């Protein structure tokens, strides 16, 4: 129970800091809104194919996450609180708390971006269940990779721009299968047709999450 309490405390601490400044949420949402608005202007009134729509949505999500999620670890080092956390908690608690916090941010980003995307591009979703499932699995994979890498990058001086560079190549399987499944959801196909894509997303989320749990101790230790 101690472990859960510690992880929860770190989550709550990050949430309160975030609610005070709204730095990460503003970055994520402004980037997503701006990008989607520009996409809507660039495409114009002509309808585009489901594959293009799915690709655009995922690219906006991935870039927004790679820009906005690196903040929480950088803040620990800038505010000189990292040492305090190391003294009082175990690494796995820090990881769990930050993961939960980032998951909340990605969920917010996904919800808002998808809503705006629907509004601007006027697309209807053929099978909402598959759509929601794809986005949820994709968000989980995205969060676990980003949390580990942002912890890594925060240690490097001036590492901010490094995060997208390290992150985007790792996200290729997520992008490919996310776009594939989203396209099928937009076209209104059934769950079973997107089986390969969904299993890839499950595998991606699981593999990156277990790798992150294993590696975080070494990233976090001084």
């Amino acid at each position, binding site marked *: 129970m101690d472990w859960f309490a510690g992880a929860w405390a770190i989550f709550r601490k990050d949430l309160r800091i975030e609610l005070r400044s709204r730095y990460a949420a503003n970055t994520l949402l402004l980037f997503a809104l701006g990008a989607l608005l520009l996409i809507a202007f660039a495409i114009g009134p002509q309808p585009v194919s489901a594959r293009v729509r799915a690709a655009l949505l995922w690219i906006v999500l991935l870039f927004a996450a790679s820009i906005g999620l690196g903040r929480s670890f950088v803040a620990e080092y800038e505010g000189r609180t990292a040492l305090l956390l190391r003294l009082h908690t175990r690494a796995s608690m820090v990881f769990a708390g930050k993961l939960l916090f980032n998951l909340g941010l990605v969920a917010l980003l996904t919800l808002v971006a998808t809503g705006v995307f629907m509004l601007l591009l006027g697309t209807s979703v053929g099978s909402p269940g598959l759509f929601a499932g794809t986005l949820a699995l994709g968000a989980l994979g995205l969060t676990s990779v980003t949390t580990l890498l942002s912890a890594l990058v925060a240690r490097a001086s001036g590492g901010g721009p490094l995060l997208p560079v390290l992150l985007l190549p790792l996200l290729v399987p997520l992008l490919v*299968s996310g776009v594939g499944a989203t396209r099928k959801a937009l076209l209104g196909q059934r769950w079973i047709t997107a089986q*390969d894509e969904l299993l*890839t997303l499950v*595998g991606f989320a*699981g593999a990156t999450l*277990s*790798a992150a749990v*294993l590696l975080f101790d070494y990233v976090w230790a001084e």
Partner: protein
Amino acid sequence: MKWKTILGLAAMLGFGTLLFVNFGSQVGGYMNFEQAARTGASAHVVGTWAKSRPTNYSRAQNTFTFYMRDESGTVRKVRYNNPKPANFEEAEQVVVQGRTQEDVFVAKHILVKCPSKYNETKGLKQKASRSSAQPPTSARQ
């Protein structure tokens, strides 16, 4: 600590396998003729040359047509707007890349897989008996 490592590695291995198996089937890319006709987009089809059906090269239009049997057994006419690829008769396997247009598969590229003259003794003998200086394993047209 030890337990965590073992458990973590096992989970990573399991999920990693799931990822690679399913990701591979998404980007694999080979189809049979039916699937290629259904997508209507550019596709790779792998199969063998159906030798019993007529094969023709029209010099005037510069088109080479032949019949190909794909891996699920469907035979379909393939048109290729180029001369016949080198080594075509010796091919064990043919890969055509193109799209279906009105029951004819119009190939942009034909890849010919020939028996290796280095690995199998049978292939070596065939090559030797023909005593020709042809490119070794495969030819991209």
